[in-house]
């Protein structure tokens, strides 16, 4: 299987307020089509790890290879292009542009990519919204939608450019259990039916147990050795 992401001796320190070694010598690989979860108690460095390997935080030591390209070697411009083309994000707080409609939010990464005409893109965005069961909400402003609907819009937005990998940071953390289940099932469905690679940070064991592989983090170290 093709490696999408690999870290080599990844270390990360916080310097404020005091020096703190957050990530300790992390070596991991994510393969194409995998549904991987990072689990661990709060404060174990899950989110920090996700930010470092997802190109958001580049102040680390060691290497993060995305498609065999070291992230630190990229200019801001190229990094932005990489995020646009190959990475989708879903955060705990939905992180949508409040002034825009659901459809516009989904279209934004596609507009930036500029591969499709406006009409084609709109159609594609509608398909994604439909896939997530919220096509009827497309023309509403996102701040009129419920939390679960908003998070589904985020998923649709993450999907629009058909990224190589989607990073999720506690995607269900801010939802009630019913909506959390709906969103998680959709993510799972994406990996099963569309072979989408997903890396998800969660503290919910019932969700992580349904993923292909769990990476357990404790005090900045990976507990289980990688099996592959």
């Amino acid at each position, binding site marked *: 299987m093709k490696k999408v992401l690999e870290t080599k001796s990844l270390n990360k320190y916080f310097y404020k307020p005091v020096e703190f070694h957050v990530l300790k010598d992390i070596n991991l690989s994510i393969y194409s089509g995998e549904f991987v979860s990072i689990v661990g108690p709060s404060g174990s460095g899950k989110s920090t790890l996700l930010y470092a390997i997802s190109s958001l935080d580049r102040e680390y030591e060691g290497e993060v290879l995305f498609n065999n390209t070291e992230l630190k070697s990229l200019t801001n*411009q190229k990094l932005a292009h990489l*995020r646009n083309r190959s990475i989708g*994000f879903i955060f705990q707080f939905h992180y949508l*542009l409040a002034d825009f409609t659901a459809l516009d939010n989904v279209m934004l990464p596609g507009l930036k990519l500029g591969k499709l005409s406006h009409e084609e893109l709109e159609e594609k965005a509608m398909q994604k919204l439909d896939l997530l069961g919220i096509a009827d909400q497309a023309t509403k402003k996102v701040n009129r939608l419920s939390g679960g609907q908003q998070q589904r819009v985020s998923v649709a937005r993450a999907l629009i450019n058909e990224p190589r990998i989607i990073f999720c940071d506690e995607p269900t953390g801010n939802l009630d259990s019913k909506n959390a289940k709906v969103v998680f099932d959709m993510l799972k469905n994406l990996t099963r039916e569309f072979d989408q690679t997903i890396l998800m940070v969660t503290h919910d064991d019932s969700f992580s147990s349904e993923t292909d592989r769990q990476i357990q983090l404790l005090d900045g170290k990976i507990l289980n050795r990688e099996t592959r």
Partner: protein
Amino acid sequence: MNRLPILKIVITHLTSRKRQTIVSMLGVTFGITVFIFQAGVITGLQDFFIEKTINSTAHIQIYQDKNQKSPPVLLNVYEDEQTWVSVPNIKSKNELPKLKRGLQIVEILESYPEVIGVSPSLSTQAILKLGVADVSGVINGVNIRKENRLFDLEKDMVNGSIIRLETVNNGIILGSGLAESLGALLNDNITVVSPGGVALQMKVVGILDTGLRDLDNNRAYSSIRNTQKLMNVTGSYITDIKIKLNDVDQAGMLAREFQSRFGYSAEDWKQANEGIFSVFRIQNIVTYLVIISILLVSGFGIFNILSMMIYEKMNDIAILKSIGYTDIDIRNIFLLEAVFIGFIGGLIGLLIGFVISWITSVIPTNIEGFVSSEYLNINFDPAFYLLAFVFGLVATSIAGYLPARKASKIDPINIIRSQ
């Protein structure tokens, strides 16, 4: 690169914060409006004054400088370079300021292709009396037809007509201010007394109002013959030759030529009005300073509003960056918003400025002072509109660029981590 996504974001930002957008637009609009109005009024007044000045003073005037002093005669005797001659208290030549061969000079001047009109004249101070009122003025002895061709006096006549100066014996045309202080009306008989003691009864055949207060307050016209009588001189006596040119900008050059050719002083209209032009220059500096400070204030307004907006939009910026928008995209979004505000605000400012100027120009104001005019003369020169617009755009772009650049440097991880 496809610019469409940015445009979409810009428009959404601007329309979703309508009040902020309108307030910052108003800042620009106000600045531009004041710019247009103030520049229009000030330069309009100046143009009006210059036009009046050009129309009522000669482009070139040839005259005998009364203060010319002859070199001491001792120099004729002691030509030796080693000799110093010092003669204190030299007086002006005891000679009338007559232009010798004046009428011949007029003929020569008329043959110049650049010259469109020549008017010989002589002038003298005089006391004008009507009953108990007496006022001093300057009597210009002119050939009224020639003078009219130069200065279009007919247009400025408020009473009577210029041609009566030729038909009425001892006719006189008074400046409006002069007539007023004398209390003289059309067809009144007044007494004119020259410094030489000659007194003439004259009949007011016209009243002239040029709009230039200085002239209207002390100038009167009479025929050359009558003025010569007043001055007690012979028929060929003239003191000034006034010249009108095709192209006013040649005045300086031709004045120098005439001066060397005829040996008399020749002054062009710019020299004659030097003081006023320097006042205008200072006035213009003040005008531009006021305008610049207004635009600076509206620039700061935009700077503040955009800075606040960026603070509010921290999340949006982080999201946009995480979905692949570059630093430059982010900068352009906010810069474009500023330019958009400047563009629309500026256009509205131009429109309002024009309307206010136009309204002002048709409301009678009856200004009395430096110049008198029934309406404010306002300059609608498109160059001002262009300048104001460009200036407004530049100011808003600079005001927008600084916060925009700050926005582009926001690192999304700091925003995302802090949630």
